[in-house]
């Protein structure tokens, strides 16, 4: 293991040859065995003892014990120290041992999972831990990927396969991976697979989940590899019968393991304060000892020497200096109670008590799922009251991660609001009658819609409404799966797409199935098959996607949906009136915190399409800057479109989120949202939970792709601060808090006005680099709200670390998915939301409960109480020890400094 580690440091590139263990053996790549446990039976005692003695207090008491064994010095019997010390040691050791036992068990379980490995031309069952780089393994549907694999071939056409990456990044949607055409030809042919002898040369093991660069050399050809061909450990294979992959990274080298942050022992600031206090007290003790030892020397000289007739000094050395020296140690022993061993134990007991109070709190119990709050690390309670920064995941933490199609605007008319008899808008409550979808056997039962006028217009056959839903059922990337008759299941890449397609389905435009060339839709009961001519896919720059289909009667149509800003620019001039109307509606929707999309269509003539199709094919085959050519081609056709309307999807917030965020910000706790979602979504959620408001002075958006861009954007934001706030407050721009500036790195500046910062994942990567991080933290901390979107799990942790480093503030991270683990681990306090997305986050967390809103009670009630009580206790404890010990000190002057 050690050799491997050393080796790893040196590894600059990895060369793996398929089916050639001897070749790969030379590099000593780690095999697939993982080890997260700390001890084994033999090393437990020494290692654990060593770790325990690293705690200053324990070491101190060991020294004391040794001193007490010297009879000349001993002023107290030795068992007064050894008994409490042994008790503390035993309890800690037992706790460590059980923890490690669990780790051993889970390691064993994972290491002993079975994988089908191609050995000697045959598929054989092999334990996971024996899988080595270069092996070719076969994966079945719904199984975990055993190691980081290069996808060779799969059961699906074109070597496609679908994976779920929940354990890696927390996203539950399916992702597509595609094998290289040359390798996908291998299929399931064992013989050919066994002969496969490609060499993969790639980057050394790293923790970047979304990047991979490598080259495959095979049959004198060179194929470049990227993340599209990689199946990472921890993913689950879905919707794919089988696939073959070649192991590139195994065990500790896999991206999953590289990404798992090291477990650190979390300490509270009280702990640190206590440690420094104990050190000071120790210094104080030494001072007292020295004073008394000097006193003893003088006393022996002046008084003791004459007192010998009654008190014979039998030792050979009877100089007063030596006596003083011995007395020093005696006093160190006798005054040791000023440095209390029991303090640590008592503090632990108090914290345990607090933890139980949190566990028992009925106000943090979630009745719907029967989940009470749970304290998993009992040592952090009082830190809860000190939290200054809260880092929150979005999906599943702030929101329920349930997208619902809530409102729409079709041809200038909004649907989705409920009006009472007098025509006033009313709140939707339990009494409101939802639309009855029973006419539609394929409707999704969970879908609820309250505006009856929409279904009426559909039934009346309003062509615009029909077109609207036809678009929704055609323009998407959803996959369908019909398990039993009448039970349609959609596999969606993004939940909002799912919401739209489900809405169309309930309104009678049911997307049934797709092939690469066709899309089948059941329109108001009759099956229609459209020829799919082209998909103009979505990306962040285009912010829209389109499909071009041919209806059975030969008409060619382009359907487009996308962000309103980009779509409105590409409308036919005749749409102007409708556009204003719709954009009013869109504003209204967005103000309510909905995610909005605009929809448009365009009728194409056959000649026009054919002409354009040629351009597209040229762009497709062009070698250099293909993406630009494609984008230009798309641009060419997506113009002069006819506006249909807009949709509003609600990403439902959890109950009480808004109130919780409001009270937390009243308590001066800053909330940063770190999410893997795209920027628009994140901003929308920011609005809907009132973290972003229209009254804010400015919302800075940092989305630069290069260091200089990011730097420029940050600088602009900063300038804006000072410029703006100068106007506002006549020179009282900011007051530097003296404390902060003394403490160091970054000045705390209070800026008048509310600001918010939204930063993108790729900009964040630059902002987190050494030369920019100061600036980033400065700007970010001046903002009331910070939203980071498209961040990787590791970046989440880096942001937390950054704030920890520069702000010296207590940070709290809250999340629910596996992608939040590193953030939860690196923050001072990690909180897992239990019950939604699996248990990984909860297992890594210090506290767990079921709903975001309980955070308020945890921080503001339990945190405060714990802190108060702990402080009172500490003050009392120190007072007690001092009064106890200083009496001894005083008595020293009366008993000839003899350490009685």
């Amino acid at each position, binding site marked *: 293991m050690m050799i491997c580690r050393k080796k790893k440091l040196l590894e600059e590139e990895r060369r793996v040859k398929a089916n050639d263990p001897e070749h790969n053996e030379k590099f000593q790549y780690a095999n697939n065995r993982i080890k997260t446990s700390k001890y084994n039976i033999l090393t437990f005692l020494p290692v654990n003892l060593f770790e325990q003695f690293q705690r200053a207090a324990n070491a101190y008491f060991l020294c004391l014990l040794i001193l007490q064994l010297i009879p000349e010095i001993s002023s107290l019997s030795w068992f007064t120290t050894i008994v409490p010390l042994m008790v503390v040691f035993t309890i800690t050791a037992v706790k460590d041992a059980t923890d490690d036992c669990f780790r051993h068990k889970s390691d064993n379980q994972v290491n002993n999972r079975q994988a089908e490995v191609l050995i000697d031309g045959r598929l054989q069952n092999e334990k996971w831990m024996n899988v080595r780089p270069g092996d070719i393994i076969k994966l079945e549907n719904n199984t975990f990927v055993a190691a980081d694999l290069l996808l060779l071939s799969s059961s699906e056409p074109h070597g496609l396969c679908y994976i779920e990456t929940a354990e890696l990044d927390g996203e539950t949607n399916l992702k597509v991976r595609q094998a290289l055409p040359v390798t996908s030809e291998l299929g399931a042919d064992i013989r050919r697979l066994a002969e496969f002898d490609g060499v993969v040369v790639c980057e050394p093991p790293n923790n970047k989940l979304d990047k991979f660069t490598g080259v495959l050399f095979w049959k004198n050809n060179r194929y470049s590899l990227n993340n599209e061909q990689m199946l990472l450990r921890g993913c689950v294979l879905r919707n794919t019968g089988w696939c073959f992959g070649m192991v590139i990274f195994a065990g500790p080298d896999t991206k999953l393991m590289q990404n798992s942050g090291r477990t650190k022992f979390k300490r509270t600031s009280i702990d640190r304060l206590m440690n420094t206090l104990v050190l000071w007290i120790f210094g104080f003790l030494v001072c007292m000892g020295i004073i008394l030892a000097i006193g003893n020397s003088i006393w022996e000289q002046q008084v003791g020497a004459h007192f010998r007739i009654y008190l*014979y000094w039998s030792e050979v050395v009877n100089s007063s200096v030596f006596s003083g020296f011995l007395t020093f140690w005696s006093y160190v022993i006798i005054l040791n109670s000023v440095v209390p061993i029991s303090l640590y134990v008592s503090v632990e007991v108090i914290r345990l008590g607090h933890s139980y109070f949190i566990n028992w709190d009925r106000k943090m119990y979630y009745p719907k799922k029967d989940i009470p709050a749970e304290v998993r690390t009992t040592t952090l309670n009082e830190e809860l009251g000190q939290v200054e920064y809260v880092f929150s995941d979005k999906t599943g933490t702030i929101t329920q991660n349930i997208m619902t199609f809530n409102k729409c605007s079709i041809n200038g008319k909004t649907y989705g609001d409920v009006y009472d008899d007098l025509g006033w808008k009313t709140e939707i409550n339990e009494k409101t009658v939802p639309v009855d979808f029973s006419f539609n056997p394929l409707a999704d039962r969970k879908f609820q819609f309250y505006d009856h006028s929409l279904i009426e217009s559909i039934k009346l056959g309003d062509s615009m409404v029909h077109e609207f839903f036809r678009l929704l059922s055609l323009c998407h990337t959803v996959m369908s799966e019909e398990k039993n008759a009448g039970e349609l299941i959609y596999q969606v890449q993004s939940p909002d797409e799912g919401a739209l397609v489900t809405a169309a389905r309930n309104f009678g435009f049911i997307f049934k199935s797709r092939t690469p060339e066709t899309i089948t839709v059941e329109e108001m009961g009759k099956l229609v098959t459209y020829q799919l001519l082209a998909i103009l896919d979505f990306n962040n720059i285009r912010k829209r996607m389109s499909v071009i289909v041919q209806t059975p009667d030969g008409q060619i149509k382009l359907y487009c949906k996308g962000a309103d800003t980009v779509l409105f620019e590409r409308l036919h001039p005749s749409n102007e009136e409708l556009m204003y109307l719709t954009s009013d509606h869109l504003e209204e929707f967005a103000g309510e915190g909905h995610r909005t999309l605009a929809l448009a269509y365009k009728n194409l003539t056959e000649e026009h399409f054919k002409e354009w199709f040629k351009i597209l094919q040229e762009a497709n085959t062009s070698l250099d800057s293909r993406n630009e050519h494609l984008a230009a081609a798309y641009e060419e056709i997506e113009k002069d479109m006819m506006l249909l309307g807009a949709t509003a999807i609600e990403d439902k917030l959890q109950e009480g989120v808004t109130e919780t965020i409001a009270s937390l910000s009243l308590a001066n706790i800053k909330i940063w949202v770190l999410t893997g979602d795209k920027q628009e979504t994140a901003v929308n959620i920011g609005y809907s939970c009132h973290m972003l408001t229209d009254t804010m002075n400015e919302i800075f958006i940092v989305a630069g792709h290069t260091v200089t861009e990011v730097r420029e954007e940050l600088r602009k934001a900063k300038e804006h601060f000072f410029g703006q706030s100068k106007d506002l407050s006549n020179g009282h721009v900011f007051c530097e808090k003296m404390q902060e500036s003394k403490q160091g790195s970054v000045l705390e500046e209070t800026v008048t006005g509310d600001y918010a910062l939204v930063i993108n994942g790729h900009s964040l990567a630059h902002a987190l680099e050494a030369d920019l991080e100061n600036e980033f933290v400065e700007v970010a901390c001046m903002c009331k709200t910070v939203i980071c979107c498209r961040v990787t799990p590791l970046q989440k942790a880096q942001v937390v670390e950054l704030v920890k480093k520069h702000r010296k503030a207590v940070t709290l991270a809250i999340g629910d998915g596996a992608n939040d683990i590193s953030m939860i681990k690196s923050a001072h306090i990690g909180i897992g939301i239990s019950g939604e997305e699996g248990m990984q986050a909860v297992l890594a967390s210090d506290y767990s409960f079921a709903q975001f809103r309980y955070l308020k009670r945890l921080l503001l009630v339990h945190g405060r109480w714990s802190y108060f009580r702990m402080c009172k206790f500490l003050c009392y404890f120190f007072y007690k020890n001092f009064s106890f010990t200083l009496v001894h000190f005083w008595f020293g002057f*009366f008993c000839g400094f003899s350490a009685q």
Partner: protein
Amino acid sequence: MAVNYNAKEEADGHPSGVGAPGGAGKSRKPDNTAFKQQRLPAWQPILTAGTVLPAFFIIGLIFIPIGIGIFVTSNNIREYEIDYTGTDSSSPCNKCLNVSWNSTPPCTCTINFTLDQPFETNVFMYYGLSNFYQNHRRYVKSRDDSQLNGDNSSLLHPSKECEPYSTSENKPIAPCGAIANSMFNDTLELFRIDNETRIPITLNKKGIAWWTDKNVKFRNPSGNTNNLTALFQGTTKPVNWPKPVYMLDSEADNNGFINEDFIVWMRTAALPTFRKLYRLIERKNNLQPTLQAGKYSLDITYNYPVHSFDGRKRMILSTISWMGGKNPFLGIAYITVGSICFFLGVVLLVIHHKYGNRNTSADIPN
């Protein structure tokens, strides 16, 4: 006055939660008990003028009378003290100043003194030593409790703690250790001088030790004989002692380890200046005071050298009251604290009266 922490919010927190979920198995809902929900009654005083001022006055008014009572009681205690060390050359004991242990014949001296006031109740006679470090750690350790408790094996094998006073001439010392070795061995006798005649005053030497010490902690070695000489066979006397432990007294129940003078000495004093009970003078009848006012003389057999370490020896006669011996400090302390409180009360009252109305809601909001 006090704020109730009692959480009023609870009562109907989650009415829906009661019959909550599952049906299958026990709900994990926490119990609704006052303890678990932290609703136990609690209070915290909030200091306002309305609470602090009366408190000061009450403390003042209670403490001052108590202090006066204690002070008067203490003043009524009669106490008389003579330093008979003899450092002063005019002192009759000056000749004995440089006496050494066990000098023969013993040096004796007599000091005359006059009691101006009679001692009405039982009188306690103490000897007092100054600058004597009975509280020194090595001194205090230097004893063997199991030997003193009559343990026969310890008798012959004293504990190491007693070093270097555990053996002498290859025989174990009984009682061993520095404390026993340095036992106070002056003899004090008191006479009343009535018309030039010396009337000896009866000094009671029993009942000066604690009951537990005499009956529990200290015991003579056991054996099948009552003869202490035989029981202490094989041991030798402490180096400084003139005679062995079994010859401390003629009476059997005050001899050996249970000699009360010895027991009193073995209970080490906490401070280098201390007094130890030496004898009791009991009141003979109710008509006469125990010690009348008048002339007395103290005969001292001066055996105990203290001059080498600047020590002092005193003889103290004292009566006691319900609060023990004479101690003016306690009364003075009570009176002082009471007065300060009262004074502060007045000052704060004045301040409150003058400035307190500035804002009527002086209560600190919680």
